[in-house]
């Protein structure tokens, strides 16, 4: 096909396109290369971020390291090298597709649309779409936002739901799109927008890190549930099986509870803040019945 050919030429010029390359399983590649590469975020607190020595840490990172242990066992390679690769929302797909990273350990929402491109292992966190606002405004529900200006991060499921709600309830909300979460939060802080619609766990992270966390409040009303998953390449059942089994084992054995407590209930590096987010009922249900479903209904 002509257009496909063109895309490939463009792809080569950008440094990624190996259509002719044989499809090799991740496990084989790890065995041959002697290393596994984890993709991590730099500021998804407390899931995946950098500490004061620029070392990637977090809840999702700990889970990925458990998966790495399972891979070591599976391949009988106890000295398997673990590499770290920083990623952003823009680079996570290309880097996963071209084999730079083997697992994406961050805060990526599992959706059916995204599953057309990549796949997810068992959900490791269930968050809800809420908004943060200044306490002084007294905003609790989405109806309180009627006619006001709010912000969300462009390209997120959150901005999509905010748009849908705005139309469905005829609220006349003016929705701004920020480039990233930090900037969206800054817009609320400086009064450009009254509320920032985002996953509640990320909002809690921003509030906890603000100079004066008491200024802010997170809405009681939630729009949806968002299951976070660790991403891996599609069409690699052997690797997915190892990863899924490692996660399931961790969930069933109660090992997850300890990791959860470590990141969400206790002081975390680098500044020793406490997120103080007890495990949600939805997450408890996932622990009892591990699932990799993108369907929000499953988590209700």
């Amino acid at each position, binding site marked *: 096909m002509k*257009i*496909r050919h063109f*895309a490939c030429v*463009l*792809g080569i010029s950008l440094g*990624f*396109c*190996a*259509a002719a*390359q044989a*499809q090799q399983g991740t496990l084989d590649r790890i065995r041959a290369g002697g290393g596994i590469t984890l993709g991590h975020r730099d500021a998804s607190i407390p899931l995946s971020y950098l500490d004061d020595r620029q070392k990637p840490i977090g809840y999702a990172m700990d889970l990925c390291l458990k998966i790495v242990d399972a891979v070591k066992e599976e391949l009988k390679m106890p000295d398997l090298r673990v590499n770290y690769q920083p990623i952003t*929302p*823009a680079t996570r*797909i*290309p880097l996963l*597709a*071209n*084999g730079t990273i083997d697992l994406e350990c961050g805060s990526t929402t599992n959706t059916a*649309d*995204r599953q*057309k*491109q*990549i796949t997810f292992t068992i959900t490791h966190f269930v968050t809800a779409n809420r908004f943060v606002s200044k306490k002084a405004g007294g905003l609790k529900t989405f109806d309180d936002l009627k006619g006001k*200006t709010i*912000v969300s991060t*462009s*390209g*997120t*499921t959150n*901005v*999509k739901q905010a*748009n*849908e709600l705005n*139309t469905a309830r005829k609220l006349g909300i*003016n929705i*701004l*799109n*920020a*480039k990233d979460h930090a*900037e969206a939060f*800054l*817009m609320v802080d*400086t*009064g*450009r927008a009254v509320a920032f619609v985002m996953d509640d766990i990320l909002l809690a992270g921003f509030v906890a890190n603000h100079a004066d966390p008491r200024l802010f409040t997170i809405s009681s009303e939630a729009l949806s549930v968002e299951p976070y998953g660790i991403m891996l*390449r*599609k*069409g*690699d059942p052997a690797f997915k099986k190892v990863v899924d089994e490692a996660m399931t084992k961790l969930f069933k054995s109660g090992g997850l509870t300890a990791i959860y407590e470590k990141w969400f209930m206790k002081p975390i590096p680098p500044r020793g803040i406490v997120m103080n987010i007890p495990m949600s009922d939805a997450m408890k249900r996932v622990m009892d019945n591990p699932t990799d479903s993108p369907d929000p209904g499953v988590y209700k």
Partner: protein
Amino acid sequence: MEYNWNWGIFLESSPDGTGSYLYTLFLGARWTLAASLTAWTAALLMGIIVGTITTFPRRLWSALGNAYIEFFRNIPLLVQMFLWFFVVPEILPESIGAWMKRMPNSSFWTAVIALSFFTSTRVAVQFRAGILSQARGQMMAAQALGMNLTQTYGHVLLPMAFRIVLPPLTSEFMNTLKNSSVAMTVGLMELTAQTRAMQEFSFQVFEAFTVSTLIYLIINLLIVLGMRQIERGLAVPGFSIERDPEARMREGG
């Protein structure tokens, strides 16, 4: 590489409810055009004025012009956008700051202002070069004919300077279009922002960026063709910067 190409994605409807993905890119391209054309017009006017001022044979004027150029040229565009959007409303009196924040399409106007100032310095420098590249005799001859400073510039120096700098201005125009993508950082949903949004929703990264690359390429090609037409239309018989070196030699120029 294990990547699942899907060019049909563009006809699928975008989750933000505005229409197909292709349509959202079109909406983005429209903001890109609106922001870059507005900013370019303003930058051209400001740049011509500032560039002319810096060549005045009056110390104060040229110092003021140079200060303007160095100020807006030496701060990265990204930082300037950020300053106009987040910092300026905070340092102004509260009522004006609040008005700026609540203004409809404030992202758009912020982007236009930042892009205009930034680009105007580049236009100014080029315009100054266009004026100074003319032989000193031009100005002397004009003044010998009894023209004052305004007339010298209006009838002799500026018309020629404009023709001399047209080719670099074409590049500057194209830079403005490309630089408008920085407006994404202040929340303008222009082409790059829409491309990224599409990538996030669908995870079809390469398709999204391929098409937006093509859109940028096509718009820029149209600019090049349009500017060439203008160059041709404005050419002065016997004076062309495209003349061959031999002709230049013969004329002793």
